């Protein structure tokens, strides 16, 4: 089974609970389309390398999951229409790729 990874940037205005809500919304999408959400990795709030929509910060979340038939289409669609997501990127992980620790907090 292929493992996918989605990274998305949530707008920094949301509080912790709203961030959780947003993430669980995507988790539901994956589950509903018979995919399986794996570990969620919060990079947290960090500086963007450049401004997006006049925002200098963003809340980064990375999520690994396996996909069912409609998962990718559906997830991408939801991500696109979500107003609280600035950017997103879905990536297929190579089968040999082991989980690596996240880089240390330092943005420029």
């Amino acid at each position: 089974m292929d493992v996918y990874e989605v990274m998305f940037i949530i707008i920094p205005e949301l509080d912790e609970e709203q961030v959780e809500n947003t993430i669980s919304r995507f988790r539901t999408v994956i589950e509903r389309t018979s995919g399986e959400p794996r570990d969620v990795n919060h990079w947290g709030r960090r500086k963007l390398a450049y401004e997006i929509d006049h925002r200098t910060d963003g809340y980064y979340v990375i999520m690994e999951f396996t996909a069912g038939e409609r998962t990718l289409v559906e997830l991408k669609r939801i991500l696109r229409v979500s107003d609280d997501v600035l950017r997103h990127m879905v990536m297929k992980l190579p089968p040999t790729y082991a989980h690596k620790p996240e880089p240390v907090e330092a943005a420029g």
Partner: protein
Amino acid sequence: MGRRRGSFNRGARPAKNKPCMFCKENIDYVDYKDYNMLRRFTSDRGKIRARRVTALCPQHQREAATAIKRAREMALLPYVVGR
């Protein structure tokens, strides 16, 4: 005669058989999330460095370049530094 190599390499630096960084560490996937590592392959202006500077093999230079572009898309690396 004791000069560098034959005439084909004149003016250029002598070829050194140095394995590229990723080959040496046996990395088969250049991860765009590891932007601090990728930063080594960009200039201080944010541009992608040429292969002769990065000393990467063709395959890994390509992969590093794609990874940098992905990182840029997600605002992990800048498209341009200072305007």
